[in-house]
């Protein structure tokens, strides 16, 4: 039984230079969800490398007390653009890019619901990123008021240059891009599922992307509003946030965090989906508690809209007990997911290929990120650790040790699908080892120094307060982490040069993308296999275990 088909060969191609130009034009004008997905992921990964270089600069400056390398002005731009890039241009868009590629495949559709809108999303995102970075060429430099851009510091009286304006416009464009992608994904999942693909047979990654899209639709419009109001204050004489003229800076924080917190889930939920595709495949079992897992995802989405002011416990202006309760509650569905993953492995036969290694690294790091999150949700403890390196470390355990580790897991897992070739297992292991050690070496000391009271966003610190050694270790760790990323880049180059074909289904996958060729043909499937469970590709491989009736083919 053949479920895959060779990609049809294109006819005679004349002159090679023509062909190259043709290929470039094709990539720039494409509306194919797979090509757009690849563009998204490559662009986002490029931003990760740039944001990482900025982080290395930060660690270089902080390795020892004293101001050795950067002025306060430059340093402020570095951490602001680092944070902005990592959140808005890397982590969230990478998830959306992955969704672009995978969601239509996972539901057995030929493309997204609105292919041209999809292309518009990508180009808005790319343009937004470009604008933010153009700030480095503006007088006064790039935005330097932190990734949160708190008013009134971000008002024109305190930060006059064009950097903040570019930052506002750039972020607004990426927000619009996100909203359009969210709409597109919701419509795609609602309307384009293949016959037999009921909602309770959707792969978990698709479920998580659907939920993420709904959060995007609720949270991005407020941030676009918050930023537009800031622009009105800055350039059109508004007084929304400026206390001196009757505005209120607290309002900015409410509007910003009304997005800012859900944004964290917009970043992490797609990767919860990623790890939930990976663990069952490498444990050779189905997901433990699929239904509970989806309920937990929906609970996280609902709760994520009610916790924003836990970023504002120290402002003295919010209802701490309510936001504390909601924030701690969100640990419950997150904990449920942990048990889903653990009991999926329980009783399985786990093979530790590179994607699984990164997934295991995630479990360790994210456990620490989650536990420290509950600690931060206690207002009184937050009074001490808010805005210190304890917080910086906490969110890197979630974002870097969590989301970014799963970016690597996703790349190692789906790269064969995207390209038809395999990455090197040995280099993958080395990448993982270096990144895992480097990451923990970078961020564990930041807990120590944060508990001692070292504030974040400082270019220098006095050497009498016990901050020196942990900072030095942290900076060394960031070097190890960077080395890991370098090995990954080498792996990419080596694998692309000396190609090892992967075949349609190199891992024994479960969801539909593994039932077509690698890379999939332009219209994704020649034949969509019958869908009788959450694991249609598994059913094909094990007809003896599948429902009676499986094995019959359905034309798309």
């Amino acid at each position, binding site marked *: 039984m053949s479920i895959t088909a060779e990609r049809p060969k294109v006819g005679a191609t004349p002159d090679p230079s023509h062909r190259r130009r043709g290929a470039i034009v094709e990539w720039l004008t494409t509306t194919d969800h797979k090509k757009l997905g690849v563009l998204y992921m490559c662009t986002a990964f490029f931003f990760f490398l740039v944001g990482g270089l900025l982080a290395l600069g930060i660690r270089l400056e902080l390795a020892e007390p004293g101001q050795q390398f950067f002025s*306060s*002005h430059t340093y*402020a731009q570095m951490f602001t653009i680092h944070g902005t890039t990592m959140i808005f241009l890397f982590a969230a868009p990478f998830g959306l890019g992955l969704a672009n590629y995978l969601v239509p495949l996972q539901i057995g559709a030929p493309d997204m619901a609105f292919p041209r809108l999809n292309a518009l999303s990508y180009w808005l995102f790319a343009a937004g990123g470009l604008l933010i970075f153009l700030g480095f060429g503006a007088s006064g430099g790039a935005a330097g008021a932190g990734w949160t851009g*708190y008013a*009134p*510091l971000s008002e024109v009286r*305190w930060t006059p240059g064009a950097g903040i304006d570019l930052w506002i416009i750039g972020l607004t464009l990426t927000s619009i891009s996100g909203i359009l992608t969210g709409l597109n994904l919701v419509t795609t999942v609602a309307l384009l599922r293949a016959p037999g693909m009921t909602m309770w047979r959707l792969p978990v990654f698709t479920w998580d992307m659907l939920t993420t899209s709904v959060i995007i639709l609720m949270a991005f419009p407020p941030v676009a509003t918050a930023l537009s109001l800031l622009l009105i204050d800055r350039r059109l004489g508004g007084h929304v946030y400026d*206390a*001196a003229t009757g*505005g209120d*800076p*607290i309002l900015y924080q409410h509007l910003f965090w009304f997005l800012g917190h859900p944004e964290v889930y917009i970043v992490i939920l797609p990767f919860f989906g990623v790890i939930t595709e990976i663990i069952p495949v490498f*444990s*050779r*079992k*189905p997901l*433990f*508690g699929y239904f509970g897992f989806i309920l937990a995802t929906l609970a996280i989405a609902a709760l994520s809209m009610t916790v924003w002011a836990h970023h504002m416990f*120290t*402002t*003295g202006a919010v209802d701490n*007990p309510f936001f504390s*309760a909601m924030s*701690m509650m969100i*640990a*419950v569905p997150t*904990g*449920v997911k*942990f048990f889903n993953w653990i*009991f999926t*492995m329980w*009783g399985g*036969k*786990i093979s530790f290929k590179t994607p699984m290694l990164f997934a295991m690294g995630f479990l360790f790091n994210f*456990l620490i990120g989650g*536990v*420290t999150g*509950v*600690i931060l*949700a*206690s*207002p*009184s*403890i937050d*009074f*001490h650790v808010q805005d210190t390196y304890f917080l910086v470390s906490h969110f890197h355990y979630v974002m870097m040790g969590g989301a970014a580790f799963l970016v690597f897991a996703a790349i190692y897992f789906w790269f064969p699908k995207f390209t038809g070739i395999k990455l090197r297992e040995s280099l993958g292991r080395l990448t993982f080892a270096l990144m895992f050690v480097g990451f923990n070496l970078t961020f564990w*000391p930041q807990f*120590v120094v944060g508990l*001692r*009271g070292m504030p974040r*966003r400082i270019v220098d*610190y*006095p050497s009498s*307060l016990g901050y020196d*050694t*942990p900072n*030095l*270790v942290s900076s*060394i760790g960031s070097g190890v982490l960077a080395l890991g990323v370098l090995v990954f880049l080498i792996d990419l180059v080596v694998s692309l040069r000396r190609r090892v074909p992967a075949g349609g289904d190199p891992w024994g996958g479960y969801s539909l993308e593994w039932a077509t060729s690698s890379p999939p043909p332009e219209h994704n499937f020649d034949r969509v296999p019958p869908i009788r469970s959450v694991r249609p590709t598994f059913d094909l491989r094990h007809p003896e*275990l599948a429902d009676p009736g499986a094995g019959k083919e359905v034309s798309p």
Partner: protein
Amino acid sequence: MSVHARRVLSALVVAVGAALLSGCASSFGIPDGATEQGRDINDLWGRFFVASLIVGGITLALIVIAIVVFRRRRGDDALPRQSEGNVPLEIVYTAIPIAIVIVLWSLSMTTENRVLDVADDPDVSVHVEAFAWGWRFGYPQEGVELVSEPDTAGPQMVLPVGRTTRIRLTSDDVIHSFYVPDFLFKRDAVPGHVWEFDITPAETGVFEGTCAEFCGLNHAFMRFSVRVVEPAEYASWLRTAADAQAEQEATL
């Protein structure tokens, strides 16, 4: 091994040691708390720390056991049993975290109520005004004012030990944050708003303070300190400071 490599290695060893030690000390890495409110927060932190160790430790143990016990042996190609869930178990692992969270939240709230409680009749009152980039500490009844001066370690607030001090906090320009790590407490100074809270120093000494909310170029250097002394010493300090200030104003 080169000198450089050896230095790096010894830094590593020291750091791992320090990290472990800081976890074993009585306060699990945070200052003991030099105010009554701070000590309260320190207690709460201790409870959270132990709870985190237990919950995190059990979860980690489950992960490690799963990884070690259920790894695939070489040549074993048979499918494991394809179990898809276990509803009683799922209910248990949802209910237990809910119970834990309710306990932790209740503990948090009782502590927060005490920490944020304000006395009807505080013994000392200090007005704190943050500005870019410094601090103004005013003792309104006595007419004493201490202000940051360029290139110094910042002004030093003086408080009596064991007496309740009311802080009235605001900002002149952007948002700053009044933070004394040894008090385990910070509060944002927001323009257009005045916040009031009490601190009751529980031991004498000098405690470093800093701005904790990014406020522009010199944020990193926006420091101050608090010196806590015996009430008698406080009274005489205040008299001397008031006289000096009156004299200074007379000469102007």
